[in-house]
């Protein structure tokens, strides 16, 4: 295998990997709509609107912050958080089984590196594709939010909710990058179910999506603050409701970019080890 000389990573090479994945997706996209669009949409209707009626009438109605001096309705509190969660779930979904499939079952990664692409190009190309999937799902979700009245014209020129979409994409990439880097090292799918059950679902439930993190027991709070999802939720919510401060936006961006950076470094190693041994 030493004959394989990895060509230095170049953006155009990674784009070739992306193009291949897009070609494939153009044929198989239908199935992904149910899991990636319907789930957040139904959660928005059931939990944001129906359960929201009860929450808004309950004793904690004033726990979701204020906008323009008025308490935030539960639907408005929940929707941007579900946007961030859509990003996370799309990212984790696209970074687990599809990566193992490309590595082990279909061996498309091997096909790619047999071309002028380096292992890093393959990694980067996959991340670009996942970024595209996250962007697509989040944009659709924002449209659904608008349809159900779950947006508040906040921020500069009322574009706050629109700005929440790139924030959600960044949140998604903060999961996609390290998870893809790790998934390529896996030989069995048991690790994936552990990630779904013990990472994704607890984050979904305890990172400030359904209630403010300040409601968690003091001992658990730092854990929630340390997760990328909390940063994503807080960033998306702050932008969508117009309550974000420059400081908080900067903090969240730095955190998310740092995680993506670490994931890129880690993935460069795992992809090289696996594809150019």
């Amino acid at each position: 295998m030493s004959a394989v000389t990895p060509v230095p990573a170049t953006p155009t090479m990674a784009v070739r990997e992306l193009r291949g994945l897009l070609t494939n997706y153009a044929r198989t996209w239908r199935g992904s709509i149910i899991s990636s669009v319907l789930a957040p949409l139904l959660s928005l209707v059931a939990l944001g609107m129906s359960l929201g009626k009860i929450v808004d009438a309950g004793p904690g109605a004033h726990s979701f912050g204020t906008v323009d001096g008025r308490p935030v309705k539960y639907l408005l509190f929940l929707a941007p958080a579900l946007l961030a969660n859509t990003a996370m779930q799309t990212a984790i979904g696209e970074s687990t089984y599809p990566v193992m499939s490309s590595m082990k079952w279909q061996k498309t990664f091997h096909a790619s590196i047999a071309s002028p692409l380096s292992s890093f190009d393959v990694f980067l190309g996959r991340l670009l594709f996942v970024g595209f999937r996250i962007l697509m799902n989040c944009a659709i979700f924002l449209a659904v939010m608008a349809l159900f009245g779950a947006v508040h014209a906040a921020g500069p020129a009322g574009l706050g909710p629109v700005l929440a979409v790139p924030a959600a994409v960044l949140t998604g990439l903060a999961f996609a990058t390290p998870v893809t880097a790790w998934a390529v090292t896996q030989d069995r799918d048991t690790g994936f179910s552990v990630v779904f059950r013990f990472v994704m679902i607890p984050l979904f439930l305890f990172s400030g999506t359904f209630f403010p993190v300040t409601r968690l027991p003091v001992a658990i709070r730092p854990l929630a603050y340390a997760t990328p999802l909390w940063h994503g939720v807080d960033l998306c919510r702050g932008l969508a409701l117009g309550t974000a401060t420059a400081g908080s936006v900067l903090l969240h961006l730095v955190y998310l970019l740092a995680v993506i950076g670490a994931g890129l470094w880690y993935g460069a190693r795992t992809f090289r080890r696996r594809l150019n041994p």
Partner: protein
Amino acid sequence: MTTADLPLTRLLLGRRAFGPMGGGKAGVLVERNLMVYRRLWLTMVSGFFEPLFYLLSIGVGLGKLTGAIDGVPYAHYVAPGLLAVSAMNGAVFDATFNVFFKIKYAKIYDAMLATPLRVGDIALGDIIWAQLRGLMYSAAFLIVMLAMGLVHSWWALLALPVTVLVGFAFAAVGMACTSFMRSWQDFDLVTLALMPMFLFSGAFYPLSVYNHQVRILIEALPLYHGIDLLRALTLGRVHVGLLWDVLYLAVMGLVGAAVAARRLEKLLLT
């Protein structure tokens, strides 16, 4: 490890316990599953945590903000709903994804039919196994409910058999549907059926938030009946009307099982 090392299953199921349904060897299949899952215990155990996480987050965390519902604290209201959801999910996933994989890819049933096992043994064995697994999750969740003080009445003892009924109804229909599936893509339909039921059937809030038409629609869905039954039992609000819920689930299970048995026989023996 030989089958003789598993006296518990033998004690529970016996060798000849299911004579009329097949060759009386369904227990062998249960033993096989037990052996397989000894290596996948993490997958097995993790199934219990999902409803627990939901209970802690939505029931307890958000519950502090919602106040009481139907005269009980929110967590007390949500917990039996999650118990029903967990019984449904466990049963459906086992009866759809796992069964499809076994039929189409692993060809496990074909291999089994080359032994003295008959189709009846296989169907019954896998159904019993799925029910045992579901029973384990339900019992664990009920114990957690008890420990958290969410159980109001001795009627809750009946909750355990009711989760088996819910599991049976969904497993039977799930298996019947699986017999018509052509590829993994078709399983999106399973998600399409389960997800709205999970969210809209009253696990998280009373149906009074809906208008009349939506209410009738929800009351026609099977999960609603499971939730209604389990909530009545754990909160100690038992009344004769609950027999309708039992009847609904029993009929659903029997119809599903009849269709599944006929289709499986066709799929495996032709």
